[in-house]
Structures are given as structure tokens and as C-alpha cells.
């Protein structure tokens, strides 16, 4: 039997038995490419996702909230770092992935192309955006690719804290002034539909889902996860005292789930293709940081090279 055939068989068995594929194992090219793309897009999302909330760190209205937000944005940088490391185990290079991001050749979650207009957005991002991210990511703790699955366990634990701090901020604001309650409702109105879009296109329009499920790098379909998120969020909204902006949202006792209104898929397509409210700013910010830091990275490389020479002399 050829090595290739052995590799293919071992890979198939690993997937079949629900075990983990590790970086040095044989894997199909398509699996490797798909994993690199999935992990890189996730890493990019963490890095771009630092911006909308990062913009409020310096303006946070109490020192406690400032510390929480700073720690949260730091966590996101950390998530990006170990996701890029997971991608590197597959032969990708962080510098190359960063170039793909800032040249617009690789995507990140479209949710971060919406602006953060008030401090309530910080809370709603934690509650809805991190909440949706958790629904997407908890099943990825069982991804067939080992390094990604292990990274996701840690990330999910931290995301769970993030969601709670957001919800706690909103709970506190709802007990504040009328203006604050209005801020929370407004932020909820603006982020609800984009959060539902985070689960991707409907199953009827998601061509890669079949292969990804077969490879066990995706465990549930987009629509299943979206439904789960809606069912989880409705009671939280009630406890908070806000209205979710969907007149068609109601409990369906036959299905034992909530029905909800039609998502504006043309908006998702628009934002993904680059025409969201903040796409250009998000990428420009990252590109500027990359360009401004180029001389620093060159200096670090030059210094390291000199040190190596000295050591070898």
C-alpha cells in the first residue's frame, strides 16, 4: 500500500472515530487549506474586533469599566495570537496572513464593520456579539483539528466572561437614567440583526457546509446555531427589559422554538463584499498600524541577526 493510501485511510479513521488530526498527520490538501482559511479568518476577526470596543477604553465612564474593557481587548489580542499560532502549525505564516488581511484578500467577521456609537454598544457587543460567537465556537472545541480545538476551549472560557461582563454592564445601565435605558435599547436595535448574520448565510445558500460537516470542522449548520442563539437570547432580553427589534419574533409551541423574521441577506452580502459602514476604516486602521510598525520590526530583526552573529563568533 502506498504512503498516500495509508495516510488517507488513517485520516478517514481519525475523523470517523471522532479523534483529533494533529499538524504532522497526513491530511487532504483541501482540509489543510480550509482549516488555514477558517483559523485565519477567526484570528483576523479577533484582531479587527479589538477596534470597535478599543475605541471606548480611553472614554470608559468608570475606572472599573475601563479595567474590564482593557482586559477584554487584551484577551482578544491573545486570542488572535494563539489562533495565528494554530494556523502556523499547518504551514501558514503570520506575516503573510496579516498581509492578506490588510490587502482585503482574506475575510474577517462582518460584524466588526458596524460602528460603536455609545458606551451601551460595549455592553451589547458582549451580550449579543460575544454571545453569538460563543454559539458558533463552543462546537468548535470539538473540531477535528487538534490545535484549533484546544485553542477554542480557552477562547470559549474567556468569551463566556466577556459575554457576562457585557450583560452585567447593560443590567447596570438599565437601572440608571432614562437616557441610559434609551442607549441600551438603541444599541440593541442596531446590533440584533447583524448578530443574527454572524451565523452566515442560510443553509440553503451555504455551499461549503456539507464538506465541513463531513470533516468535522463544523458540527452544526448555520441555521441550527442561529436558532440556538435566538432561543438563548430571548429570555435574556426579557430579563434585561429591552425589546428585540423583530415584530415576527414569537414562541412557537409546536416547534418548541422561537420563530423570527426574515434576515436582510442583501445587507450581509453588502457588508461582506466591503460596503459595510466601517469596512474601510477597520482595514485602514490595521494597515496604518502595520506600516507604522514596519521600521520597528525591521530593527528587531536586525538586532536579532547581530546577536546571532555575535553568539556564533
Amino acid at each position, binding site marked *: 500500500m502506498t504512503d498516500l493510501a495509508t495516510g488517507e485511510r488513517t485520516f478517514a479513521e481519525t475523523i470517523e472515530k471522532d479523534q483529533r488530526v494533529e499538524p504532522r498527520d497526513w491530511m487532504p490538501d483541501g482540509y489543510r487549506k480550509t482549516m488555514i482559511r477558517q483559523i485565519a479568518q477567526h484570528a483576523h476577526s479577533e484582531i479587527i474586533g*479589538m*477596534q470597535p470596543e*478599543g475605541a471606548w*477604553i*480611553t*472614554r*470608559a*465612564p*468608570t*475606572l*472599573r469599566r475601563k*479595567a*474590564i474593557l*482593557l482586559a477584554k*481587548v*487584551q484577551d482578544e*489580542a*491573545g486570542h488572535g*495570537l494563539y489562533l495565528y499560532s494554530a494556523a502556523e502549525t499547518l504551514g501558514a505564516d503570520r506575516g503573510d496572513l496579516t498581509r492578506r488581511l490588510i490587502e482585503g484578500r482574506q475575510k474577517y467577521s462582518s460584524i466588526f464593520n458596524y460602528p460603536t456609537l455609545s458606551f451601551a454598544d460595549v455592553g451589547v457587543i458582549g451580550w449579543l456579539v460575544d454571545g453569538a460567537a*460563543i*454559539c458558533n465556537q*463552543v*462546537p468548535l*472545541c*470539538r473540531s477535528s483539528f487538534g490545535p484549533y480545538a484546544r485553542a477554542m*476551549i480557552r477562547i*470559549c*472560557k474567556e468569551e*463566556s*466572561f*466577556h459575554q*457576562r*461582563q457585557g450583560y*452585567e454592564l447593560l443590567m*447596570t*445601565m438599565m437601572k*440608571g*437614567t432614562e*437616557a*441610559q435605558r434609551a442607549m441600551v435599547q438603541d444599541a440593541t436595535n442596531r446590533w440584533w440583526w447583524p448578530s443574527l448574520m454572524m451565523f452566515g448565510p442560510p443553509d440553503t445558500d451555504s455551499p461549503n457546509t456539507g464538506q465541513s460537516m463531513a470533516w468535522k470542522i463544523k458540527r452544526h449548520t448555520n441555521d441550527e446555531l442561529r436558532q*440556538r442563539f435566538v432561543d*438563548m437570547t430571548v*429570555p435574556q432580553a426579557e*430579563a434585561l427589559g429591552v425589546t428585540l427589534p423583530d415584530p415576527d419574533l414569537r414562541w412557537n409551541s409546536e416547534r418548541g422554538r422561537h420563530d423570527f423574521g426574515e434576515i436582510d441577506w442583501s445587507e450581509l452580502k453588502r457588508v461582506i463584499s466591503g460596503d459595510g459602514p466601517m469596512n474601510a476604516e477597520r482595514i485602514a*486602521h490595521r494597515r*496604518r*498600524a502595520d506600516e*507604522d*510598525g*514596519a*521600521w*520597528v*520590526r*525591521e*530593527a*528587531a*530583526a*536586525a*538586532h536579532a541577526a*547581530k546577536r546571532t552573529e555575535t553568539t556564533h563568533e
Partner: protein
Amino acid sequence: MSFDDAYGALTDHDDDARWAYGTGFADPLAGVPTAIPDGVDRADLAAYCLMLGDDALIMSHRLQQWVTRAPELEDELAVANIGLDLLGQARLLLTRAGEAEGSGRDEDTLAYLRDPHEFRNVLLAERSDDDFAHLVARLLVFATWRLALLDRLAASGDPVLAAIGAKGVKEVTYHREYAAQWVVRLGDGTPVSHERVQAAVDAVYPLVGELFETHEVERRLAGRGIAVEPASLRAEFDAVMAEVVAAATLRLRAATAVEPGRGRDGMHTAALGEILGEMQELARAIPDGAW
């Protein structure tokens, strides 16, 4: 592994231990007696806590401005981490200032409702950074000075200041290490980085004099074993700086006689007004808000 249970955990409201910033965190002052020591002038102690607290708060603000635009992800983590440490020190010190005053002002009242002339930070903390070289040069000076200070403060007769000093030493040791490593890399890197970090050191050094001026509040409290006289830290500071600067192949230019800043007396540059404009904007817009 049934990690799917994490879904359930999110809707469980009775599990306070899972909160990141709620009940789960250890109080850094747990077990430390907070009574003001006998014979200590409360106004002096409050002023001194504001000085050290404002240094940390304002320096932290400048670091926060770098969090999404540093040269590498590792540096974004580092500046966030250092900013968080200093913010933590600021919160403890401002809280202590409020206690010493006995006026009921808490950390937020002091951070958000004072005007620039009421801030007591040194001018070094408020200076804006032209580039990453300026940030690390300024951080090196700040951390080298503050580490020497906190190290002495750990022996303060005020148990709270002593605890803050002891905790801060561990943190600021890392801050100094991080900044020193970058100053060396940049100084010994490329001709461009060498020139930039030399320019940064040159720009920051005129602000050094103020760090070692002993304010009358400091002199009085030092006499009672509560505060540290900054002048006593100069030799240690100079020795550390000389070592780092030599390793970085940089030069410390003979300082032209510059009048030391008087941030300790509330005399600041326009930079502080800009910082406070940003920091206090929301808190002042909704003064009766619940956050």
C-alpha cells in the same frame, strides 16, 4: 468532553464565581489595615496619593492609546498589560487619597471630576508619543524611576502605601524590562531605528529633572517614614539608564539647563487637557448615570 454545557452556563445567573470581574478577584489590600497612621497629616497623605495615583492614571491613558496600533500583536498585549497594571495602581492610590481626605470622594470622583489644574502627575506621564520609539523611551524613564520609588515605598509606615509599593514592584519590574529591551533593540537595530530612538531619548530627557524634585508634601511625609524623597532615587536611576543606554549604543546628551516641570503643583501642558477631555467626556455627560 461535553463542552456543550458552556451554553447552559451562560444563562445560569446564580453562579457568581464565573464572573471575570466580580466576586472572583482577590482584593490586593485584603488583610491590610486601612486606618490612617497616627500623627500623619491627612491632607498631605491625600496629596501624596494623588501624585503617585495620577502618574499611573495618566501614563496608563497614554498606553491605552497604543492598544490597537502597536508594531506587533505581542506589543499590543504588552502595552495593554502595562496599562492595566498602572490603572490598578491608580485605582488603589486614588481610593487611598479619598480615604485620607475623608471627604467621601472615591476613585471615580477623583479621576473624572477634577480639572487639569487639580491633577498632580509629572509632565512625563502626560507627554504624547510621536512614535513607538518615544513610547518605549518614555516608558523606560517612567518605569525606572517608579520602580526605584515603589521599592522604597514598600517600607512605608502607611500599611496601604507599603502594600501598594510591594505589589507594584513586581509589576513595574516587568514594565522596565519590556521598555529596556525595546530601547536596546531599536538602538542596536537599523540606522533608522537608532536615529529615532536617540531622538526619543533626547526629547524625553528634559522631563527627567522634575522626577527628582522633592515636593514639600513629600519632604514632610518622608520625615515621618510615609513617603519617599525622590531626590534619593537619582543615583539608582542614573545607573540603570546608563547601562541600558550603553547596551543600546545610544548617548545621553548633556542636559541643557531646563526648569523642572511643576506638575505636582497642578501646572500642566495642553496634553493633559486633551487626555482629560477624552477620559472624562462620557462620565461628565451623564453625571448621574449608573455604570
